[in-house]
């Protein structure tokens, strides 16, 4: 329908343990949201205030109806449902966001290998097209589900909500959601994750946090990646970090290299702490059985 953004055909390509399930591709349109939109809590409508108010002149038949609803309210409700689903199972979920080419997938692969003996890791991969990233992730030993957003520029809570029961991550495990490479749109869409982690690489400009402030404001942790390349670049690390903290004073920052493994200990320690908290804080109802396949 749209050639600009998020309402093209979305395809799920779930693959369990490397075996491609041919019948599992699901054609799906975000526009279907309309069909099951939640009821308007504020109704019945206020028709008591009479005809159109002063700022709507010339439309004598018109009546102003107060709505007061957040535009992202529907996404936020679905994100809350995802968050509850994850919390019930003690799953620690991270939403990894960055511009294309920052090294997200390489970073994920190294993280998965480093945690291989500690806890199961599953990955949701968001890209406009191809299954390349999911294949790379599977090669590193984790189960991955690719979501192709078509013309869409971000993952939303409904897509992730569909992915969760298909991927069926184990209780007390780590779920990594690699968002579409885009420093703008994913900032606005809560997926139900515990934290957004923004990845900035030193081959980009140090002024990125000021150019794309929404993303750095939405993140709790910034990984400054590719620091092994610093000797060859004029990138000013202190300036980049100061810019990021100007946008988000509470932002934690860890310098890493997904290629050499530099800085991985503090990053993995941060992940382990989150895993521990998710396990301890799990809202597991008694007798909960994990939904398998929807």
């Amino acid at each position, binding site marked *: 329908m*749209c050639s*600009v*953004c*998020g*309402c093209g055909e979305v395809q799920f390509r779930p693959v369990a343990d490397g075996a491609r399930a041919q019948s599992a591709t699901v054609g799906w349109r*975000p*526009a279907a*949201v*309309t069909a099951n*939109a*939640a*009821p*308007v809590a504020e*109704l*019945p*409508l206020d028709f008591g205030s009479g005809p*159109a108010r002063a*700022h*709507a002149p010339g*439309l004598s*038949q*018109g*009546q*102003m*109806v*107060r*709505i*007061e*609803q*957040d*535009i*992202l*309210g*529907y*996404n936020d409700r679905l994100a809350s449902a995802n968050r509850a689903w994850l919390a019930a199972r003690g799953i620690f979920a991270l939403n990894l966001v960055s511009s294309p080419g920052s090294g997200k997938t390489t970073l994920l692969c190294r993280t998965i290998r480093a945690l291989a003996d500690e806890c199961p890791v599953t990955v949701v991969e968001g890209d406009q097209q191809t299954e390349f990233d999911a294949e790379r992730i599977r090669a590193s030993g984790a189960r991955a589900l690719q979501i192709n957003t078509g013309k*869409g*520029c*971000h993952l*939303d809570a409904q897509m992730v909500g569909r992915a969760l029961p298909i991927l069926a991550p184990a209780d007390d495990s780590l779920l990594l959601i690699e968002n579409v490479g*885009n420093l*703008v*749109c994913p*900032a*606005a*869409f809560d997926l139900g994750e515990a934290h957004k982690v923004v990845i900035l690489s030193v081959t980009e400009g140090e002024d990125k*946090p*000021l150019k794309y*402030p*929404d993303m750095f*404001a939405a993140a709790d942790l910034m990984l400054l990646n590719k620091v092994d390349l610093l000797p060859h670049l004029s990138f000013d690390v202190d300036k980049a970090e100061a*810019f990021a*903290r*100007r*946008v*988000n*004073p509470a932002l934690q920052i860890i310098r890493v290299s997904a290629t050499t493994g530099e800085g991985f200990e503090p990053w993995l320690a941060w992940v382990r702490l989150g895993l521990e908290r998710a396990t301890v804080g799990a809202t597991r109802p008694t007798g909960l059985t994990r939904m398998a396949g929807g």
Partner: protein
Amino acid sequence: MHEMSLAEGIRSIVESAARDGGFSRVTRVVLEIGALSAVEKDALRFCFDAVMRGTVAGGAVVEMIDLPGAGLCVQCGRNVPIAARYDACPACGSYRVQPTAGMEMRVRELEVE
């Protein structure tokens, strides 16, 4: 670029309100957009027209009310106006300003027939 998704969110709210309120035509949609929200207003206007076509709000006028940004300066403790997330506190110059208003993206009201 995510304005198309936002426009679809607006359509969903408008259609649901029309269904529940029993009105057949929406002629004006009034939005509240905060200065710190992630909305490019021109893009949203463009997407709005495309997405509303063929619905009860086809051809409706979209009106956007700007809501100002404000923040609490952690350094000096004042509530101050800010125009962007990276703005310094106008009182003390600190960048440690926690936004408190201006993140809104809301459908405020509809003009209906």
